[in-house]
């Protein structure tokens, strides 16, 4: 193959380079735009997003009783605290690992709403009279869901919720 056929004129190369760059940019933008639908198709579909909120009725839970409900596939502990428990929780900030006053963890003081997953590695803690105990590695939580003892680094997480009626809460999407 002879080189004579393939030589180019010097003044062409500037224009050619610009055209090449422009085409490359346009093509690259197209490829990026075209990949988005595929990537996004792996995000939760609309039927799952619609179930991302949970409406919970609070009727029938007596003081001292805890109920477990579901939100986004996770357990949520709803504890209706007795007056004694509310007072007791107000006296401390939990432990030095994650100190937090009880008032900042509740919207109405008798209702504690926390995500029922141990902040250590995600097991579901078991209910006892003083709070919760995680059977996996021994973390201990009080009746405000605060970590007292054990390997868990944080107090039980709080889901985003609001009271939409006296006896109804809505745990929101995010």
């Amino acid at each position: 193959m002879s080189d004579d056929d393939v030589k180019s004129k010097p003044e062409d190369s500037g224009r050619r380079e610009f055209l090449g760059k422009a085409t490359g940019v346009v093509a690259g933008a197209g490829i990026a735009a075209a990949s988005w639908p595929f990537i996004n198709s792996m995000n939760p579909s609309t039927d799952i997003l619609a179930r991302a909120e949970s409406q919970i009725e609070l009727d029938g839970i007596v003081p001292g009783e805890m109920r477990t409900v579901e939100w986004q596939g996770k357990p949520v502990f709803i504890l209706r605290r007795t007056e004694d428990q509310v007072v007791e929780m107000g006296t401390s900030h939990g432990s030095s690992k994650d100190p937090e006053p009880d008032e900042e963890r509740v919207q109405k003081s008798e209702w504690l709403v926390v995500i029922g997953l141990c902040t250590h590695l995600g097991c579901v803690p078991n209910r006892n009279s003083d709070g919760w105990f995680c059977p996996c590695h021994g973390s201990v939580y009080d009746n405000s869901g605060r970590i007292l003892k054990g390997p868990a680094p944080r107090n039980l997480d709080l889901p985003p919720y609001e009271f939409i009626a006296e006896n109804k809460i809505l745990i929101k999407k995010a």
Partner: protein
Amino acid sequence: MARLINWIDARFPLTKFVKHELTDYPTPRNLSYWWNFGFLAGFVLMLQIISGIFLAMHYKADVTLAFDSIEHIMREVNYGWLIRYLHSTGASAFFAVIYIHMARTLYYGSYRAPRELMWWTGQGLLLMLMATAFMGYLLPWGQMSYWGAQVITSLFGATPFIGDEVVIWLRGDFTVGDATLTRFFVLHYLFPFLIVGAVIIHLVALHYVKSSNPSGINLADKDNIPFHPYFTVKDLYGLGLFLIVFCYFVFFQPEFFIEATNNIPANFLQTPEHIVPEWYFLPFYAILRSIPDLLGGVVGMFLSVIIFAAMPYLDRSSIPGGAHYRPWYRIMFYVFIVDILVLGYVGAQASSDLLIVVGRVATFIYFLTFCLLPYVSRKEEQWLRKRGLPAEIEELLQQESLQQQKKDNV
């Protein structure tokens, strides 16, 4: 970046390979746009694999769930409708591209020595593609999916002696059912990767014998040009044109290739009025129906796909190439194309007395074209030689006979 490439090059022939097989790869300078379709086929293969994998993240291969999962993809998965339409339109695009690719090969005689293995690996690829498409069509579990699969799997009952057992074995059940759907899904997912392997073999063969070209004569070295940038840019331009047509269908006429009846869930108690395969199977379906005997029809249909493999031996002319220098061959080619279109039309219609006759005549012509080729090609060569061959052919034939003499003398 350059340092990284150097590090790799010391351990792996990356740059050498890319230079030899892609950048500097010698390609005939006179290739026309008909040579774009191999690249397009590779592109559509990638498109189908990618869209298929993302669909498979949401599809459920179970008779009680399949149809619903497709609607879930269409309505609830983000951009699910787009990925689905890419895949369904892609199937038709794949066959369109492959049929044009095959037509190019036939017209220009690219199947002839030394490219027979390319033609045969291509033949194998076509069969695998047809199997993949057939199995894929069952997956939506619509009326046409189900009844199309019922009809085609029952054809295997024509196998002598063990026909019934073969059909049951194929289906995994006495009828097309959950067992069939599950295995078709698994195989439909598998086959494209086998196709990728066969494409690699196809390309290895290509790079050994190099591309043919429109004149049919092997060009001198000086008439080759490097693949990059000439044919990389030409392939990309062709891809742009292809995508325009393709996306028109995806975005504006996506249901064009989907049978209306397939929007009804499969009902094993009710056969649709009109069972019709996808367009790319129509000519072969017409041949199947034209032959009144079950075994005969199945053999005929199978033969009509396989017979292409015989082309290198059916063509007895020593005039190189295809239709370029051979007017009789060109006429046969056009007759064959028209005949396929007629067969396709017949395959889509419900049976009628007239259509049965038309179908049989068209089937006859289809096979006759192959059968006549040995005779016609030789007679044509005689006729061409009497008229006087063009100079380039004379030269080439002389060269070839000289080489043959040298071989004989050794």
